[in-house]
Protein backbone atom coordinates (compact mmCIF):
# COMPACT_ATOMS: atom_id res chain seq x y z
CA UNK A 1 0.00 0.00 0.00
CA UNK A 2 1.28 3.46 -0.92
CA UNK A 3 1.26 6.47 1.33
CA UNK A 4 -0.65 9.36 -0.30
CA UNK A 5 0.46 12.97 0.05
CA UNK A 6 -0.85 16.36 -0.99
CA UNK A 7 1.74 18.42 -2.86
CA UNK A 8 -0.31 21.24 -4.33
CA UNK A 9 -3.60 23.06 -3.83
CA UNK A 10 -5.53 25.49 -6.01
CA UNK A 11 -8.61 27.31 -4.72
CA UNK A 12 -10.95 29.58 -6.69
CA UNK A 13 -13.43 31.02 -4.21
CA UNK A 14 -15.47 34.09 -3.40
CA UNK A 15 -12.77 35.25 -0.96
CA UNK A 16 -9.66 34.48 -2.95
CA UNK A 17 -8.07 32.69 -5.87
CA UNK A 18 -4.78 30.88 -5.33
CA UNK A 19 -3.57 29.48 -2.03
CA UNK A 20 -1.88 32.61 -0.66
CA UNK A 21 -4.83 34.88 -1.38
CA UNK A 22 -7.36 32.37 -0.08
CA UNK A 23 -5.49 31.37 3.09
CA UNK A 24 -4.76 34.96 4.03
CA UNK A 25 -8.44 35.90 3.61
CA UNK A 26 -9.58 32.81 5.54
CA UNK A 27 -7.33 33.55 8.51
CA UNK A 28 -8.66 37.10 8.54
CA UNK A 29 -12.21 35.72 8.62
CA UNK A 30 -13.15 37.51 5.41
CA UNK A 31 -16.38 36.91 3.51
CA UNK A 32 -17.93 38.33 0.38
CA UNK A 33 -21.67 38.64 0.96
CA UNK A 34 -23.92 40.69 -1.32
CA UNK A 35 -27.64 41.19 -1.90
CA UNK A 36 -28.88 38.93 -4.70
CA UNK A 37 -29.04 40.64 -8.14
CA UNK A 38 -32.05 42.89 -8.69
CA UNK A 39 -32.75 41.07 -11.94
CA UNK A 40 -33.44 37.85 -10.01
CA UNK A 41 -36.04 39.67 -7.93
CA UNK A 42 -37.96 40.59 -11.07
CA UNK A 43 -38.72 36.89 -11.55
CA UNK A 44 -39.67 35.89 -8.02
CA UNK A 45 -40.06 37.12 -4.48
CA UNK A 46 -37.48 35.05 -2.60
CA UNK A 47 -37.36 34.33 1.13
CA UNK A 48 -33.57 34.58 1.23
CA UNK A 49 -31.96 37.62 -0.38
CA UNK A 50 -28.19 37.36 -0.03
CA UNK A 51 -25.46 35.28 -1.62
CA UNK A 52 -21.71 35.05 -1.95
CA UNK A 53 -20.67 36.00 -5.50
CA UNK A 54 -17.40 35.05 -7.14
CA UNK A 55 -14.96 37.77 -8.21
CA UNK A 56 -14.67 38.55 -11.91
CA UNK A 57 -12.16 36.02 -13.20
CA UNK A 58 -9.93 36.56 -16.23
CA UNK A 59 -9.55 32.96 -17.32
CA UNK A 60 -6.80 33.81 -19.80
CA UNK A 61 -4.55 34.17 -16.73
CA UNK A 62 -4.93 30.42 -16.15
CA UNK A 63 -3.90 29.05 -19.59
CA UNK A 64 -7.57 28.92 -20.57
CA UNK A 65 -8.04 30.14 -24.14
CA UNK A 66 -10.87 32.24 -25.52
CA UNK A 67 -11.97 29.17 -27.47
CA UNK A 68 -12.10 27.13 -24.24
CA UNK A 69 -14.30 29.82 -22.73
CA UNK A 70 -16.81 29.48 -25.57
CA UNK A 71 -16.93 25.69 -25.38
CA UNK A 72 -16.94 25.00 -21.62
CA UNK A 73 -19.41 25.63 -18.80
CA UNK A 74 -18.34 27.94 -15.99
CA UNK A 75 -18.09 24.98 -13.60
CA UNK A 76 -15.40 23.52 -15.87
CA UNK A 77 -13.61 26.86 -16.28
CA UNK A 78 -13.45 27.24 -12.49
CA UNK A 79 -11.95 23.76 -12.17
CA UNK A 80 -9.43 24.39 -14.94
CA UNK A 81 -8.35 27.58 -13.18
CA UNK A 82 -8.07 25.69 -9.88
CA UNK A 83 -6.03 22.98 -11.61
CA UNK A 84 -3.67 25.55 -13.10
CA UNK A 85 -3.17 27.05 -9.63
CA UNK A 86 -2.69 23.64 -7.99
CA UNK A 87 -0.08 22.57 -10.54
CA UNK A 88 1.79 25.84 -10.00
CA UNK A 89 1.60 25.32 -6.25
CA UNK A 90 2.93 21.77 -6.68
CA UNK A 91 5.78 23.20 -8.78
CA UNK A 92 5.05 20.92 -11.69
CA UNK A 93 6.52 22.33 -14.86
CA UNK A 94 4.17 22.47 -17.83
CA UNK A 95 5.00 22.79 -21.49
CA UNK A 96 2.57 23.58 -24.29
CA UNK A 97 2.37 20.54 -26.58
CA UNK A 98 -0.44 21.52 -28.94
CA UNK A 99 -1.16 25.23 -29.24
CA UNK A 100 -4.34 24.82 -31.29
CA UNK A 101 -5.92 22.38 -28.85
CA UNK A 102 -4.31 24.01 -25.79
CA UNK A 103 -2.86 20.69 -24.60
CA UNK A 104 -0.05 20.72 -22.04
CA UNK A 105 2.55 18.22 -20.93
CA UNK A 106 3.30 17.78 -17.23
CA UNK A 107 6.96 17.16 -16.55
CA UNK A 108 7.85 14.10 -14.43
CA UNK A 109 4.27 12.81 -14.66
CA UNK A 110 3.53 9.52 -16.45
CA UNK A 111 0.29 10.00 -18.38
CA UNK A 112 -0.75 6.35 -17.97
CA UNK A 113 -0.13 6.34 -14.20
CA UNK A 114 -2.13 9.52 -13.58
CA UNK A 115 -5.78 10.28 -13.03
CA UNK A 116 -8.37 13.03 -12.75
CA UNK A 117 -11.08 12.89 -10.09
CA UNK A 118 -13.60 15.73 -9.96
CA UNK A 119 -16.74 16.10 -7.90
CA UNK A 120 -19.70 18.22 -8.87
CA UNK A 121 -23.23 18.49 -7.55
CA UNK A 122 -25.07 19.61 -10.66
CA UNK A 123 -22.48 19.85 -13.48
CA UNK A 124 -23.30 22.35 -16.21
CA UNK A 125 -26.64 23.58 -14.91
CA UNK A 126 -25.83 27.17 -15.86
CA UNK A 127 -25.43 26.16 -19.51
CA UNK A 128 -28.62 24.08 -19.33
CA UNK A 129 -30.61 27.05 -18.06
CA UNK A 130 -29.11 29.44 -20.61
CA UNK A 131 -29.68 27.16 -23.58
CA UNK A 132 -33.23 26.33 -22.54
CA UNK A 133 -33.97 30.03 -22.06
CA UNK A 134 -32.72 30.69 -25.56
CA UNK A 135 -34.68 27.73 -26.91
CA UNK A 136 -38.01 28.62 -25.36
CA UNK A 137 -37.93 32.41 -25.30
CA UNK A 138 -36.24 33.36 -28.57
CA UNK A 139 -39.30 32.56 -30.75
CA UNK A 140 -41.46 34.60 -28.38
CA UNK A 141 -38.91 37.41 -28.36
CA UNK A 142 -38.92 37.53 -32.17
CA UNK A 143 -42.71 37.47 -32.31
CA UNK A 144 -43.09 40.22 -29.72
CA UNK A 145 -40.32 42.22 -31.32
CA UNK A 146 -42.36 42.41 -34.53
CA UNK A 147 -45.41 43.69 -32.70
CA UNK A 148 -45.28 47.32 -31.57
CA UNK A 149 -48.06 46.72 -29.07
CA UNK A 150 -45.76 44.62 -26.95
CA UNK A 151 -42.62 46.70 -27.16
CA UNK A 152 -42.50 47.21 -23.40
CA UNK A 153 -42.64 43.46 -22.98
CA UNK A 154 -39.83 42.87 -25.44
CA UNK A 155 -37.69 45.34 -23.49
CA UNK A 156 -38.37 43.66 -20.16
CA UNK A 157 -35.73 42.00 -18.01
CA UNK A 158 -36.68 38.52 -19.11
CA UNK A 159 -35.87 39.27 -22.73
CA UNK A 160 -32.76 41.23 -21.88
CA UNK A 161 -31.50 38.14 -20.10
CA UNK A 162 -32.21 35.66 -22.87
CA UNK A 163 -28.85 34.43 -24.17
CA UNK A 164 -28.41 35.36 -27.81
CA UNK A 165 -27.33 31.88 -28.82
CA UNK A 166 -28.13 28.24 -28.23
CA UNK A 167 -24.57 27.12 -27.66
CA UNK A 168 -23.75 24.35 -30.15
CA UNK A 169 -21.40 22.80 -27.60
CA UNK A 170 -24.12 22.59 -24.95
CA UNK A 171 -24.27 18.78 -24.70
CA UNK A 172 -20.59 18.57 -23.84
CA UNK A 173 -20.94 21.58 -21.51
CA UNK A 174 -23.91 20.31 -19.49
CA UNK A 175 -22.78 16.73 -18.84
CA UNK A 176 -21.37 16.35 -15.31
CA UNK A 177 -18.26 14.51 -16.55
CA UNK A 178 -17.31 17.47 -18.78
CA UNK A 179 -14.98 18.87 -16.15
CA UNK A 180 -12.89 15.77 -15.45
CA UNK A 181 -12.81 15.18 -19.20
CA UNK A 182 -11.57 18.72 -19.93
CA UNK A 183 -8.78 18.43 -17.35
CA UNK A 184 -7.76 14.98 -18.63
CA UNK A 185 -7.63 16.24 -22.21
CA UNK A 186 -5.78 19.44 -21.37
CA UNK A 187 -3.00 17.64 -19.48
CA UNK A 188 -3.11 14.36 -21.45
CA UNK A 189 -3.74 12.23 -18.34
CA UNK A 190 -4.88 8.77 -19.44
CA UNK A 191 -4.83 6.56 -16.35
CA UNK A 192 -8.22 7.06 -14.73
CA UNK A 193 -10.80 9.78 -15.36
CA UNK A 194 -13.61 9.87 -12.82
CA UNK A 195 -16.53 12.13 -11.93
CA UNK A 196 -18.23 12.00 -8.55
CA UNK A 197 -21.83 13.22 -8.53
CA UNK A 198 -22.74 13.17 -4.87
CA UNK A 199 -24.22 16.63 -4.30
CA UNK A 200 -22.51 18.35 -1.35
CA UNK A 201 -20.20 15.39 -0.69
CA UNK A 202 -18.94 15.22 -4.29
CA UNK A 203 -15.59 16.93 -3.68
CA UNK A 204 -14.80 14.80 -0.65
CA UNK A 205 -15.68 11.57 -2.45
CA UNK A 206 -13.65 12.59 -5.53
CA UNK A 207 -10.57 13.11 -3.37
CA UNK A 208 -11.29 9.90 -1.47
CA UNK A 209 -11.55 7.97 -4.71
CA UNK A 210 -8.23 9.39 -5.90
CA UNK A 211 -6.68 8.52 -2.52
CA UNK A 212 -7.80 4.89 -2.88
CA UNK A 213 -6.46 4.60 -6.43
CA UNK A 214 -3.02 5.87 -5.40
CA UNK A 215 -3.00 3.89 -2.17
CA UNK A 216 -3.79 0.68 -4.08
CA UNK A 217 -1.08 1.36 -6.66
CA UNK A 218 -3.35 1.85 -9.66
CA UNK A 219 -1.87 5.29 -10.30
CA UNK A 220 0.89 7.47 -8.82
CA UNK A 221 -0.45 10.95 -9.47
CA UNK A 222 -3.88 12.58 -9.36
CA UNK A 223 -5.62 15.86 -9.90
CA UNK A 224 -8.55 15.68 -7.51
CA UNK A 225 -11.14 18.15 -6.30
CA UNK A 226 -14.56 19.63 -6.78
CA UNK A 227 -16.30 22.38 -8.68
CA UNK A 228 -19.67 24.08 -8.87
CA UNK A 229 -21.15 27.08 -10.66
CA UNK A 230 -24.68 28.05 -9.65
CA UNK A 231 -25.08 31.45 -11.29
CA UNK A 232 -27.83 31.92 -13.85
CA UNK A 233 -29.50 35.02 -15.31
CA UNK A 234 -32.86 34.32 -13.69
CA UNK A 235 -32.00 33.12 -10.17
CA UNK A 236 -33.63 29.77 -10.85
CA UNK A 237 -31.03 27.70 -9.02
CA UNK A 238 -31.22 30.05 -6.06
CA UNK A 239 -35.00 29.65 -6.07
CA UNK A 240 -34.73 25.86 -5.89
CA UNK A 241 -32.72 26.03 -2.67
CA UNK A 242 -34.79 28.93 -1.35
CA UNK A 243 -37.99 26.95 -1.88
CA UNK A 244 -36.47 23.97 -0.07
CA UNK A 245 -36.10 26.30 2.97
CA UNK A 246 -32.38 25.65 3.14
CA UNK A 247 -31.07 29.22 2.76
CA UNK A 248 -30.19 31.82 5.36
CA UNK A 249 -33.14 34.10 6.18
CA UNK A 250 -34.64 36.35 8.87
CA UNK A 251 -31.38 38.07 9.78
CA UNK A 252 -30.65 41.50 11.15
CA UNK A 253 -27.33 42.18 9.46
CA UNK A 254 -25.93 40.89 6.20
CA UNK A 255 -22.47 40.33 7.70
CA UNK A 256 -23.69 38.18 10.56
CA UNK A 257 -26.49 36.35 8.76
CA UNK A 258 -24.42 33.25 7.96
CA UNK A 259 -23.78 31.55 11.32
CA UNK A 260 -23.10 27.80 11.26
CA UNK A 261 -23.30 26.05 14.65
CA UNK A 262 -24.83 29.11 16.29
CA UNK A 263 -28.19 28.84 18.02
CA UNK A 264 -29.50 31.69 15.83
CA UNK A 265 -28.57 30.04 12.54
CA UNK A 266 -31.26 29.94 9.88
CA UNK A 267 -29.83 28.18 6.85
CA UNK A 268 -26.84 28.20 4.53
CA UNK A 269 -25.38 31.08 2.55
CA UNK A 270 -25.81 30.39 -1.18
CA UNK A 271 -22.51 30.68 -3.01
CA UNK A 272 -22.31 31.52 -6.70
CA UNK A 273 -19.72 28.76 -6.94
CA UNK A 274 -16.09 27.87 -6.63
CA UNK A 275 -13.55 25.12 -7.09
CA UNK A 276 -10.57 23.57 -5.40
CA UNK A 277 -8.10 21.11 -6.82
CA UNK A 278 -5.51 19.12 -4.90
CA UNK A 279 -2.46 17.47 -6.41
CA UNK A 280 -2.13 14.02 -4.84
CA UNK A 281 0.85 11.72 -5.28
CA UNK A 282 2.21 8.53 -3.86
CA UNK A 283 4.89 9.44 -1.36
CA UNK A 284 7.50 7.76 -3.53
CA UNK A 285 6.44 9.77 -6.58
CA UNK A 286 6.46 13.03 -4.65
CA UNK A 287 9.89 12.39 -3.15
CA UNK A 288 11.36 11.33 -6.49
CA UNK A 289 10.61 14.74 -7.97
CA UNK A 290 11.58 16.64 -4.84
CA UNK A 291 8.08 17.90 -4.10
CA UNK A 292 7.15 19.92 -1.03
CA UNK A 293 4.57 17.97 0.95
CA UNK A 294 1.66 19.86 2.50
CA UNK A 295 0.04 16.97 4.41
CA UNK A 296 -0.74 13.28 4.12
CA UNK A 297 -4.13 11.63 3.58
CA UNK A 298 -4.36 8.57 5.78
CA UNK A 299 -7.93 7.32 5.31
CA UNK A 300 -11.23 7.78 3.52
CA UNK A 301 -14.62 6.34 4.33
CA UNK A 302 -18.23 6.83 3.25
CA UNK A 303 -21.61 5.70 4.54
CA UNK A 304 -25.17 6.11 3.36
CA UNK A 305 -28.16 7.17 5.49
CA UNK A 306 -30.87 5.31 3.53
CA UNK A 307 -33.23 7.73 5.22
CA UNK A 308 -34.39 10.68 3.07
CA UNK A 309 -33.19 12.29 -0.16
CA UNK A 310 -33.34 15.86 1.20
CA UNK A 311 -32.75 15.39 4.89
CA UNK A 312 -30.06 13.99 7.15
CA UNK A 313 -31.00 11.12 9.41
CA UNK A 314 -31.42 13.13 12.66
CA UNK A 315 -30.14 10.19 14.70
CA UNK A 316 -26.69 10.71 13.12
CA UNK A 317 -26.11 6.96 13.29
CA UNK A 318 -24.42 6.77 9.89
CA UNK A 319 -22.19 9.72 10.73
CA UNK A 320 -21.11 7.94 13.90
CA UNK A 321 -20.35 4.83 11.84
CA UNK A 322 -18.53 7.01 9.32
CA UNK A 323 -16.13 8.20 12.02
CA UNK A 324 -15.79 4.81 13.65
CA UNK A 325 -14.83 3.09 10.40
CA UNK A 326 -12.61 5.97 9.28
CA UNK A 327 -10.52 5.85 12.44
CA UNK A 328 -10.53 2.06 12.62
CA UNK A 329 -9.01 1.80 9.15
CA UNK A 330 -5.79 3.43 10.37
CA UNK A 331 -5.95 2.40 14.03
CA UNK A 332 -6.34 6.00 15.19
CA UNK A 333 -8.24 6.75 18.39
CA UNK A 334 -10.65 9.68 18.73
CA UNK A 335 -8.37 11.36 21.30
CA UNK A 336 -5.63 11.59 18.66
CA UNK A 337 -7.75 13.91 16.46
CA UNK A 338 -7.11 17.61 17.10
CA UNK A 339 -9.29 19.26 14.45
CA UNK A 340 -12.45 18.67 12.44
CA UNK A 341 -13.37 20.78 9.45
CA UNK A 342 -17.11 20.27 9.72
CA UNK A 343 -19.75 20.13 7.01
CA UNK A 344 -21.24 23.03 9.00
CA UNK A 345 -23.84 24.34 6.58
CA UNK A 346 -25.77 26.50 9.02
CA UNK A 347 -29.06 24.67 8.53
CA UNK A 348 -30.95 23.79 11.69
CA UNK A 349 -30.84 20.03 11.16
CA UNK A 350 -27.30 19.66 9.85
CA UNK A 351 -25.65 21.59 12.64
CA UNK A 352 -27.81 19.96 15.30
CA UNK A 353 -26.98 16.45 14.09
CA UNK A 354 -23.33 17.07 13.23
CA UNK A 355 -22.52 18.82 16.50
CA UNK A 356 -24.28 16.05 18.41
CA UNK A 357 -22.03 13.42 16.84
CA UNK A 358 -18.89 15.49 17.41
CA UNK A 359 -19.82 16.07 21.05
CA UNK A 360 -20.56 12.39 21.52
CA UNK A 361 -17.36 11.10 19.93
CA UNK A 362 -14.84 13.84 20.71
CA UNK A 363 -16.31 16.10 23.38
CA UNK A 364 -14.48 19.44 23.62
CA UNK A 365 -11.10 17.92 22.74
CA UNK A 366 -11.20 18.79 19.02
CA UNK A 367 -11.27 22.19 17.41
CA UNK A 368 -14.22 22.55 15.03
CA UNK A 369 -14.84 25.12 12.31
CA UNK A 370 -16.99 25.58 9.24
CA UNK A 371 -15.36 26.95 6.11
CA UNK A 372 -18.90 27.59 4.87
CA UNK A 373 -19.12 30.26 7.58
CA UNK A 374 -16.72 32.27 5.39
CA UNK A 375 -17.60 31.46 1.79
CA UNK A 376 -21.08 29.97 1.97
CA UNK A 377 -22.03 26.64 0.43
CA UNK A 378 -20.41 25.71 -2.86
CA UNK A 379 -22.11 22.28 -3.05
CA UNK A 380 -19.88 19.91 -5.03
CA UNK A 381 -16.83 22.12 -4.52
CA UNK A 382 -17.25 22.44 -0.77
CA UNK A 383 -15.68 19.12 0.21
CA UNK A 384 -12.61 19.86 -1.88
CA UNK A 385 -12.25 23.39 -0.52
CA UNK A 386 -12.60 22.04 3.02
CA UNK A 387 -10.12 19.21 2.40
CA UNK A 388 -7.68 21.88 1.24
CA UNK A 389 -8.36 23.97 4.36
CA UNK A 390 -7.76 20.91 6.54
CA UNK A 391 -4.43 20.18 4.85
CA UNK A 392 -3.35 23.82 5.14
CA UNK A 393 -4.40 23.88 8.80
CA UNK A 394 -2.12 20.92 9.48
CA UNK A 395 0.73 22.52 7.55
CA UNK A 396 0.44 25.93 9.22
CA UNK A 397 -0.60 24.58 12.64
CA UNK A 398 -3.53 26.95 12.82
CA UNK A 399 -6.93 27.40 11.26
CA UNK A 400 -9.60 29.98 10.56
CA UNK A 401 -12.42 30.97 12.86
CA UNK A 402 -15.92 29.60 12.51
CA UNK A 403 -17.53 32.94 11.81
CA UNK A 404 -20.54 34.34 13.64
CA UNK A 405 -20.84 31.47 16.09
CA UNK A 406 -21.30 33.51 19.25
CA UNK A 407 -23.67 31.07 20.98
CA UNK A 408 -22.74 27.52 19.97
CA UNK A 409 -25.49 24.98 19.59
CA UNK A 410 -23.54 22.49 21.71
CA UNK A 411 -20.66 22.31 24.08
CA UNK A 412 -17.99 21.73 21.44
CA UNK A 413 -14.77 23.65 20.76
CA UNK A 414 -15.78 25.99 17.96
CA UNK A 415 -12.72 27.91 16.69
CA UNK A 416 -13.30 31.53 17.72
CA UNK A 417 -9.81 32.91 17.28
CA UNK A 418 -6.80 32.21 15.11
CA UNK A 419 -4.18 30.66 17.33
CA UNK A 420 -1.42 28.09 17.23
CA UNK A 421 -2.85 24.56 17.33
CA UNK A 422 -0.66 21.47 17.20
CA UNK A 423 -2.69 19.62 14.59
CA UNK A 424 -1.31 16.17 13.80
CA UNK A 425 -4.48 14.37 12.74
CA UNK A 426 -7.60 16.05 11.34
CA UNK A 427 -10.86 15.16 9.65
CA UNK A 428 -12.83 16.85 6.90
CA UNK A 429 -16.39 15.62 6.39
CA UNK A 430 -19.31 16.20 4.06
CA UNK A 431 -22.94 15.15 4.02
CA UNK A 432 -25.09 15.32 0.94
CA UNK A 433 -28.64 15.44 -0.37
CA UNK A 434 -29.35 11.85 -1.30
CA UNK A 435 -27.98 10.58 2.01
CA UNK A 436 -24.25 10.35 1.32
CA UNK A 437 -21.77 10.85 4.15
CA UNK A 438 -18.02 10.97 3.47
CA UNK A 439 -14.91 11.82 5.45
CA UNK A 440 -11.19 12.13 4.85
CA UNK A 441 -8.57 11.66 7.54
CA UNK A 442 -5.42 13.75 7.21
CA UNK A 443 -2.17 13.73 9.12
CA UNK A 444 0.95 15.78 9.42
CA UNK A 445 3.60 14.55 7.03
CA UNK A 446 6.56 13.11 8.90
CA UNK A 447 9.48 11.30 7.24
Amino acid at each position, binding site marked *: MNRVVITGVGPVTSIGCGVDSFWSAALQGKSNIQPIPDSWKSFHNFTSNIYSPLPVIDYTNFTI*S*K*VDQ*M*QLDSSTLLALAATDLALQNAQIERTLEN*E*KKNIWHLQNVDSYRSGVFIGTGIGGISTLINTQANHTLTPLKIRLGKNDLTKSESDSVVFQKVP*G*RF*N*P*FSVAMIMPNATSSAIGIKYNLKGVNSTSCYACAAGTIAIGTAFQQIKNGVIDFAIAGGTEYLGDPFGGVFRAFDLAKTLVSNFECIETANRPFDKKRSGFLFSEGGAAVLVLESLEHALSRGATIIAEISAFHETFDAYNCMSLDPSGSEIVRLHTELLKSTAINPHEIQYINAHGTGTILNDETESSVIEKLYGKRVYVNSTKSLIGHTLGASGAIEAMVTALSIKHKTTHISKNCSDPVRNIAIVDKVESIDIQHAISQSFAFGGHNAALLFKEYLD
Partner: protein
Amino acid sequence: MNKDEIKSKVNTVIQDVLRVKSEVIKPESRLKEDLGAESLDMVTLLMALEDTFKNSISDEDAAELTTVESIVSYISHRAEAN
Protein backbone atom coordinates in the same frame (compact mmCIF):
# COMPACT_ATOMS: atom_id res chain seq x y z
CA MET B 1 -16.45 50.50 -38.25
CA ASN B 2 -14.67 50.70 -41.63
CA LYS B 3 -13.61 47.75 -43.76
CA ASP B 4 -9.97 47.85 -42.57
CA GLU B 5 -11.10 47.66 -38.94
CA ILE B 6 -13.42 44.78 -39.80
CA LYS B 7 -10.61 43.00 -41.64
CA SER B 8 -8.28 43.42 -38.68
CA LYS B 9 -10.86 42.08 -36.22
CA VAL B 10 -11.71 39.14 -38.47
CA ASN B 11 -8.00 38.26 -38.69
CA THR B 12 -7.71 38.37 -34.89
CA VAL B 13 -10.71 36.06 -34.48
CA ILE B 14 -9.29 33.62 -37.02
CA GLN B 15 -5.91 33.66 -35.24
CA ASP B 16 -7.55 33.00 -31.86
CA VAL B 17 -9.81 30.21 -33.04
CA LEU B 18 -7.67 28.45 -35.64
CA ARG B 19 -4.36 29.21 -33.92
CA VAL B 20 -2.72 30.27 -37.17
CA LYS B 21 -0.16 33.03 -37.58
CA SER B 22 -1.26 36.39 -38.94
CA GLU B 23 1.01 36.16 -41.97
CA VAL B 24 -0.70 33.05 -43.36
CA ILE B 25 -4.12 34.70 -43.35
CA LYS B 26 -4.79 36.10 -46.81
CA PRO B 27 -8.08 37.45 -48.21
CA GLU B 28 -8.32 34.48 -50.54
CA SER B 29 -7.45 31.90 -47.83
CA ARG B 30 -10.02 29.12 -47.62
CA LEU B 31 -10.91 28.40 -44.03
CA LYS B 32 -10.94 24.62 -44.33
CA GLU B 33 -8.49 23.84 -47.11
CA ASP B 34 -5.88 26.55 -46.45
CA LEU B 35 -6.24 27.37 -42.75
CA GLY B 36 -7.07 23.87 -41.50
CA ALA B 37 -10.48 24.57 -39.96
CA GLU B 38 -12.33 21.42 -38.94
CA SER B 39 -16.10 21.29 -38.49
CA LEU B 40 -15.99 22.18 -34.76
CA ASP B 41 -13.57 25.01 -35.59
CA MET B 42 -16.14 26.41 -38.04
CA VAL B 43 -18.82 26.39 -35.35
CA THR B 44 -16.47 28.08 -32.90
CA LEU B 45 -15.42 30.62 -35.50
CA LEU B 46 -19.03 31.62 -36.11
CA MET B 47 -19.61 32.01 -32.36
CA ALA B 48 -16.51 34.16 -32.05
CA LEU B 49 -17.55 36.32 -35.00
CA GLU B 50 -21.02 36.77 -33.49
CA ASP B 51 -19.48 37.80 -30.16
CA THR B 52 -16.99 40.18 -31.78
CA PHE B 53 -19.42 41.94 -34.11
CA LYS B 54 -22.53 41.62 -31.90
CA ASN B 55 -24.55 40.13 -34.73
CA SER B 56 -26.10 36.74 -35.18
CA ILE B 57 -25.19 34.75 -38.28
CA SER B 58 -27.85 32.47 -39.71
CA ASP B 59 -27.03 28.92 -40.78
CA GLU B 60 -27.80 29.85 -44.38
CA ASP B 61 -25.40 32.79 -44.32
CA ALA B 62 -22.77 30.76 -42.46
CA ALA B 63 -22.69 28.20 -45.26
CA GLU B 64 -21.46 30.91 -47.63
CA LEU B 65 -18.57 31.99 -45.39
CA THR B 66 -15.79 29.86 -46.79
CA THR B 67 -12.93 32.34 -47.23
CA VAL B 68 -11.50 35.21 -45.21
CA GLU B 69 -12.71 37.71 -47.80
CA SER B 70 -16.23 36.30 -47.76
CA ILE B 71 -16.38 36.89 -43.99
CA VAL B 72 -15.06 40.46 -44.26
CA SER B 73 -17.53 41.27 -47.07
CA TYR B 74 -20.45 39.73 -45.22
CA ILE B 75 -19.76 41.66 -42.02
CA SER B 76 -19.11 44.89 -43.93
CA HIS B 77 -22.45 44.59 -45.70
CA ARG B 78 -24.22 43.86 -42.40
CA ALA B 79 -22.54 46.92 -40.85
CA GLU B 80 -23.62 49.13 -43.74
CA ALA B 81 -27.18 47.80 -43.56
CA ASN B 82 -27.33 48.69 -39.85
